[in-house]
């Protein structure tokens, strides 16, 4: 298919060059309005087709990067933030990410409740399950099976166009911090003495 077209093109160009030199050949061609316009139209169509085909090609250039900067360190939690982003966003796989993040938060909440209220892990799990572990209804709803988000949060989620999950997650993080009582692990905690 391509070969005859190429041959035709080469022949046409050859005739054109010859015509530029030899008047005899030029006079043999039909210089009528229609033929010239047709040739012009062919040129336009072919030119546009050519330009268009090239438009889609990617531009390549070497990217030497930024050797002047120090290699950036990883920030702990950045990967978790990415997963949260996926969980709250419309992307596919959001459901799985939501479940994973919720499980991770639940473990943390159970451990915190068990320690701070001095109850067994089973009892702490029940407290988290029923939502009685915190006074914040939004945080409770995030981890509880039965209770649902307060109307206020539902409205805010609807107005801002963000997911309720996001509000719930932020509330839970705040609730865990409150449950911990703002006290660092290096603070006034008793250290069991276990020298042997």
């Amino acid at each position, binding site marked *: 298919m391509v070969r005859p077209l190429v041959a035709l093109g080469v022949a046409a160009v050859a005739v054109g060059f010859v015509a530029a030199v030899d008047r005899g050949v030029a006079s043999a061609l039909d210089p009528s309005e229609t033929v010239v316009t047709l040739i012009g139209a062919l040129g336009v169509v*072919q030119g546009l087709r050519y330009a268009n085909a090239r438009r889609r090609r990617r531009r390549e250039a070497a990217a030497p990067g930024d050797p002047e900067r120090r*290699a*950036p360190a*990883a920030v702990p939690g950045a990967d978790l933030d990415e997963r949260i982003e996926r969980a709250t966003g419309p992307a596919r796989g959001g459901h799985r990410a939501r479940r994973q993040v919720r499980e991770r938060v639940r473990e943390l909440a159970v451990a915190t409740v068990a320690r701070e209220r001095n109850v067994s892990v089973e009892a702490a799990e029940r407290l988290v399950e029923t939502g009685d572990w915190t006074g914040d209804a939004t945080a409770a709803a995030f981890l509880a099976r039965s209770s649902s988000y307060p109307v206020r949060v539902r409205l805010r989620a609807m107005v801002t166009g963000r997911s309720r999950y996001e509000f719930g997650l932020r509330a839970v993080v705040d609730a865990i911090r409150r449950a911990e009582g703002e006290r660092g692990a290096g603070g006034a905690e008793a250290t069991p003495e276990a*020298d042997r």
Partner: protein
Amino acid sequence: MSRGRRSSAVDAGGAADSEESDDEGSDDEGGGDGEGSDDGPATTERVTRRGVETGRWDGIRGAALALVGVGVIARRPGLVLLGAVGVGYALYASVGEAPAATLDVTRTVSDATPEPGDEVTVAVRARNAGDAPVADLRLVDGVPPALEVVDGPARIATALRPGSAAAFEYAVRATRGEHEWEAVTAITRNPSGSRERTTAIEPADPARVVCTPELAAGGDLPLRGLTTRYHGRMPTDVGGAGVEFHATREYRRGDPLKRVDWNRRARTGELATVELREERAATVVLLIDARESAYAAPEPAAETAVEASVGAAGQAFRALLDGGDRVGIAALGPVDCWLAPGAGSAHAARGRDTLATDPALAPTPSGDRFYRSLWLRRFRRRLPADAQVLFFTPLVDDAAASIARRIDAHGHLVTALSPDVTAGETPGERLVGFERRERLRELRSAGIRAVEWDGESFPVAVARATNRWSP
């Protein structure tokens, strides 16, 4: 030695102007291509990484043809002529190949053994050793990933005639570790920029900077009651010679007279001997977490936990050695690192070198895979039976805590020392911070001492934590 000679040779060359070095070049390299000149000092290695069509002039032919067509239809000779200009550009774009970067590159650093924080000036000089001019040349230096350029960009854009040279300088701030420069990246293009070639050029003398911080003494370090049979500073529950009172017992023939309890003798008439608490030396291994996860910081540009750990380990190393204990160093990471416990000034120097330049504790992760059980087996085999472990780890994953417990379970007393590198901005960062604190609590409830420090200096944190501990 060879470094000194080479840099002076480069200086001599650098002093010459480009015109002069024209002649010099043709004398030196004769062959033109310069592929490993016979015995010359500079055997620059060049590897072409890739050559591509940049596509910068894409579509110019189509546009020219369309213009000519429009000119023909409209019977406007001006437009046809304009199209001819486009054809000219299309021809220009297709002429010429991206020239090979036949450059001889030398790189010199002003100070090969700087102190941390010093500025080191790096001078790069590239000479066109080929026969063809390079119309468009960009050179980007391979600055080590852990060093930051503080003055000037580490790159240049220029054109080089055969034999002429270009030079540029920049300054980096030295940080702990052994830093080796990577290859210079040269990007050459043909005059129209339609073709491009990327070449990695390894200078004949790879620049290297070794930065070894002084070990600052970090006050007193809390150790636990596991000791060796050597005399030292750790109070034990063994009676004998010492300072602190321990117990009295019946006099036995041969006991030194000065330890006889004369008061008791006067009161009751019995002979008794005072036993004092023996003070012995401990064997300590400083274990530094250098897995990829430990290269973490609260901000991408901040100091990583490995840096904080190595700094603290340096203070601990000095303090323990000064206290008469035997200290060793190990790294928890994919690259093996083990300095057996020892004492003395030669050992102190070895320890300082290990902390500064051991590849296992490099300022950027090695990228190798880490096999935990293999590592643990090897570590346990090496660890002396009476050794206790000071474990420096950011505790940002469960593996670190479990390793601490496993070492503890094998009868070595473990103290976890944890720099806090968690940030508190986003929900994810805060959750990871909670999890880390949970791990610290779990370690403590498992009977492992834990100290964390954040912002404040390591000795202050240790002193604060020690107040809570009974001896």
